[in-house]
C-alpha cells in the first residue's frame, strides 16, 4: 500500500521523466519506438541466454583488449630485455614479446587483464559454439531466420580467426609455431600459395614486419567486422522476435517471456556480472598462456605440448590425423597441409552455411517457424548434428595426442591410429545411436504439451484413446507409425489466455507442394 507521500513522490518522478522524454522526442520522435522496445518480450528459457553469454564475453574482450593495446607494442624490432623477469635478462627478442612480458610483470593490473582477456576468448568461442549447437538442434535457423544463421556462422569464423591472431601477437614459442604452420598451409595453396604467404608475411617466415599487420587485423579490422555483424545479428533478432519452445499457451502467433524493461534488462545485467566474475576470477586465479616460460619465438626451437587454443584444435588435429599423402606430377606439388588445413574447413563451413537450405530440402518444410523443435522431434537433423559433434571432438582430441599420451602412458602412434579410424566410425555410430534415441524418446509418451493438433481423438472399446488424422501436426513433428498411442493428457480446446483463433482445431490442410501446414498460421504457405 502506498502512502500519500509515496504517491506524490511517484507523481513527481513521473513528471520529471515526462519532461526528459519530451526533450528526446522533440528531437528524435522516438516515443513509439521506446515504448515498443520497453514492452518487448524475450522468452526466458535458459538456453536462450548462451548467445548473450557470447555477446557479453565479447564486451569484456573489447574492454580488456583496449587496456592491453595501450601497452602492447606491435613491432618486430629486436630489443634486449632488461626487465624484472631474470631468466630472460639480456636476451634478444621482438618488441612484441618484450612488451607483453612487461605487461605481465611490470604493469600492475597487466597480468590479470591479459589472462582475463585470454580466458574470455576461450569462453567466447565456447559460448558461440554452444549457442550454434542450440540453434541447430532446435531448428531456430529455419525461415525467416536463415540470414541470421549466415551472419552467426560468419561471426564464428571471425571469432576463431580473431582468437588465433590474438594469441599470436605476443610472438612466443607456442604461438610462433602456430604461425609457422599457418604459413606452410598458405604456402601449399596451388599456383599462388608461395606468393600469398610472402605477401602476407612481407617475406619468408617469420618476416620482419608481421606483427604490425597482425595487430591491425586483430585490433581494428576483425573487431569492426565482429561488432558490425553482431549488431546486425541482434537487429534481426529484435525485428523478428526470438523463437521459443512449444508449451502450454504458446503458439506461432504469440510470445511468452519477460518484458525488456525492467525484468529482462536487470536479469541480463546480472548475467553480465556473473560472466565478468567468472572471467576475472579465472584471470587472477588460474594461469593461462605463461609466455615467459615459452620464451620468444625462434624458428629452431620447439616445445612438447604445442597445441593451438582449443577452438583451433580441430584443425590441428586434422593436420595430425591426415595421412601423409602428397601429390606430385608435371613438376608441381599439392603439399600435404593443403587438404586438412584448407580443403577440410572449406567443406565444413560450406555445409554449415548451407544448412538451412539443406534442412528445408530434407524435411520439405519451407514454412515460417517461430516455435522451436525439440531435438527428438527431428531425429535426422539431430543425428547429423551429433555425428558432426563427434567428428569435431575426435579431431580436437587428436590435437592433444601427445599430452593425452603423456598422461595416460599410451603411445601417440596408437592414439593417432584410434582417432583416425574414430573420425569416421565415431560419427557413423553416433548417427545411428542418436537417431534411435530420438525415435525412442518420441515413442515413449507423447509429451503432454504436444497435443496432436488437427487430429481427432477417438476412444475405442477397450477404453484407450488414439488419434485419427495422420501425422502429429504442430511444430514439425515427423510422422511415425505407432499403432496404439496413448492419449495426450491436455483436453482438446482448452488453453491459456490470449490464444487467438479457433481455427487451430481444423483438420490440417495438406499443401499440394508437399509440406504440411502449421495450424494457427491461417493456412501458412510453403515456398514455391
Amino acid at each position: 500500500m502506498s502512502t500519500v507521500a509515496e504517491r506524490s513522490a511517484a507523481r513527481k518522478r513521473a513528471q520529471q521523466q515526462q519532461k526528459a522524454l519530451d526533450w528526446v522526442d522533440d528531437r528524435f520522435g522516438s516515443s513509439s519506438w521506446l515504448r515498443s522496445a520497453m514492452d518487448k518480450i524475450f522468452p526466458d528459457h535458459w538456453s536462450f541466454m548462451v548467445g548473450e553469454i557470447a555477446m557479453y564475453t565479447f564486451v569484456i574482450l573489447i574492454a580488456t583488449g583496449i587496456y592491453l593495446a595501450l601497452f602492447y607494442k606491435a613491432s618486430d624490432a629486436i630489443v634486449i630485455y632488461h626487465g624484472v623477469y631474470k631468466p630472460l635478462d639480456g636476451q634478444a627478442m621482438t618488441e612484441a614479446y618484450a612488451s607483453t612480458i612487461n605487461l605481465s610483470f611490470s604493469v600492475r593490473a597487466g597480468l590479470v587483464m591479459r589472462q582475463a582477456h585470454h580466458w574470455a576468448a576461450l569462453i567466447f568461442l565456447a559460448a558461440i559454439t554452444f549457442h550454434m549447437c542450440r540453434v541447430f538442434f532446435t531448428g531456430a535457423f529455419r525461415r525467416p531466420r536463415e540470414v541470421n544463421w549466415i551472419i552467426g556462422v560468419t561471426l564464428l569464423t571471425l571469432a576463431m580467426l580473431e582468437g588465433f591472431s590474438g594469441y599470436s601477437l605476443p610472438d612466443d614459442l607456442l604461438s610462433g609455431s602456430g604461425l609457422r604452420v599457418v604459413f606452410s598451409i598458405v604456402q601449399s595453396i596451388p599456383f599462388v600459395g608461395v606468393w600469398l604467404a610472402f605477401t602476407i608475411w612481407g617475406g619468408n617466415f617469420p618476416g620482419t614486419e608481421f606483427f604490425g599487420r597482425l595487430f591491425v587485423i586483430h585490433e581494428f579490422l576483425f573487431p569492426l567486422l565482429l561488432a558490425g555483424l553482431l549488431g546486425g545479428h541482434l537487429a534481426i533478432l529484435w525485428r523478428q522476435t526470438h523463437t521459443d519452445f512449444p508449451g502450454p499457451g504458446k503458439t506461432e502467433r504469440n510470445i511468452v517471456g519477460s518484458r525488456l524493461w525492467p525484468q529482462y534488462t536487470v536479469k541480463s545485467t546480472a548475467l553480465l556480472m556473473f560472466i565478468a566474475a567468472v572471467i576475472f576470477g579465472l584471470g587472477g586465479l588460474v594461469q593461462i598462456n605463461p609466455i615467459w616460460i615459452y620464451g620468444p619465438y625462434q624458428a629452431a626451437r620447439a616445445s612438447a605440448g604445442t597445441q593451438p587454443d582449443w577452438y583451433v584444435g580441430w584443425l590441428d588435429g586434422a593436420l595430425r590425423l591426415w595421412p601423409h599423402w602428397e601429390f606430385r606430377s608435371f613438376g608441381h606439388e599439392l603439399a600435404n597441409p593443403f587438404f586438412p588445413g584448407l580443403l577440410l574447413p572449406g567443406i565444413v563451413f560450406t555445409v554449415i552455411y548451407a544448412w538451412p537450405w539443406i534442412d528445408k530440402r530434407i524435411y520439405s518444410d519451407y514454412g515460417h517457424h517461430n516455435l522451436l523443435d525439440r531435438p527428438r522431434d527431428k531425429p535426422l537433423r539431430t543425428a547429423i548434428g551429433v555425428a558432426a559433434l563427434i567428428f569435431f571432438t575426435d579431431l580436437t582430441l587428436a590435437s592433444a595426442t601427445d599430452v593425452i599420451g603423456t598422461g595416460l602412458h599410451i603411445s601417440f602412434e596408437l592414439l593417432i591410429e584410434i582417432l583416425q579410424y574414430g573420425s569416421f566410425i565415431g560419427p557413423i555410430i553416433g548417427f545411428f545411436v542418436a537417431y534411435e534415441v530420438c525415435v525412442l524418446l518420441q515413442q515413449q509418451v507423447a509429451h503432454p504439451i504436444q497435443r496432436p493438433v488437427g487430429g481427432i481423438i477417438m476412444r475405442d472399446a477397450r477404453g484407450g484413446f488414439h488419434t485419427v488424422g495422420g501425422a502429429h501436426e504442430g511444430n514439425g513433428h515427423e510422422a511415425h507409425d505407432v499403432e496404439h498411442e496413448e492419449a495426450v493428457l491436455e483436453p482438446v480446446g482448452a488453453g491459456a489466455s490470449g490464444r487467438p483463433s479457433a481455427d487451430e482445431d481444423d483438420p490440417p490442410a495438406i499443401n499440394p507442394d508437399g509440406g504440411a501446414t502449421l495450424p494457427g498460421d491461417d493456412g501458412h504457405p510453403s515456398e514455391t
Partner: protein
Amino acid sequence: MPEIITGTHGPEEGAGAGTPWPDDVPPNQDDTWYPLRDDPWRAARLEYFIAALWGVTGICGIGLMVVYWTGGQAQLEGWLLLAAFGCLGVGLLLWARQLLPGHEVTAIRHQHISEPEVRAAVVDSLSRGAEPMLSRRGFLVKKVLVPVGGIFGIAALWPLASMGPRPGNALYHTKWYPGARLVTEDGRALTVDDVMVDGLMTVWPEGYIDNPQSAAVLVNIGGQPLQARPGQAGFEVISGANGLVAFSKVCTHAGCAVSLFNVLSMQLICPCHQSTFNILQDCKPVFGPASRPLPQLPLGVAPGGYLIARSDFIEPIGPGFWNRSGD
C-alpha cells in the same frame, strides 16, 4: 503464388481496440505484479540483503584500489574481482526475480511481413527509371559499367601486393654455403669429436646463427649403418667411432623444428604433428603426416677437425609448395 500473411503491424491493427501500441497485452495480465508485492516485510528484508551484497562489492572495490596501490597481486585481484562482480550479479538477480515485475508475460508476436500493396509499391519505386537505366538492352550498365567497375576494383586491390616481395627462388636456398663451419648457438665451431655418440646439437652455418631456414640438426650415430637416399650418399662424416650426419631442422610437413630425438629407435620427431623420421634411413618419414624426408646436409671436415658443409642442401627445405619439383 504463396499466400502472404497479413501483418499486424501498425497501430490501427493492434489487438486491443483503440490502443495505439503494437505489442499489446491480453487484458487479464497484470503488468505490475512481482512475487513479493504483497509481502512488504519480506521485500524489505530482501532489499537489505541485496544492499549487503552490494556493500560487499563496494568493499571489494576499495580492496582492489588498495591492492593496486601497493603494487598489485594477481591472485588477490582475482578473488576481489570475483567477489565484487559475483555479489553484484546475485543482488541484481534477486532483485529481478523477486522485486521487479514483468515475468511470464504473453503478447502477440509480430508478423513483420508487409502487405501486397506495399511490396508492389517497392517494385514500382525500384522500376522507376528502369527504362532509361537499361536502355539499349542495358548497354551502359551491363556492358560498360560492370566490366569497368571490375577492372577498377582489381586495380584498387593491386597496392596490396606491395605488402611483400616476390618469392623468386627464396625457398630453394638456405644460408649454407660450401665450406661453412657448423657452429652452435653460442658461436662455437664443432669438431668431429665434440658431439658424443648418441648425441645431437642444433647447428647453423658460421655467420648466420639463428637464421630460421638454415637450422640443422647434427647427430652422431656412432657406428650404425646409414642407408642414404640416391643422390645423397657420402653426405656423412665417419671419423673413428663417430658417425656424423646433419639434417635440416625444418619439418617437411608444416615447418616446425624437428628436434625430439629417440636414441633407442634413432628417430627424430617433430612435436607439432608427430611426424617421425628414421635417421638411419636418411630421415625418411615413417609415421605422421610428413611425406618427404628431411634434406641432408653434405658434411666434410676442414683442417683442424672442424665440421663444414660441402654445399647447401641439394633440395628445398621445409614444407611443400606448388612449384616444388619432385625429388
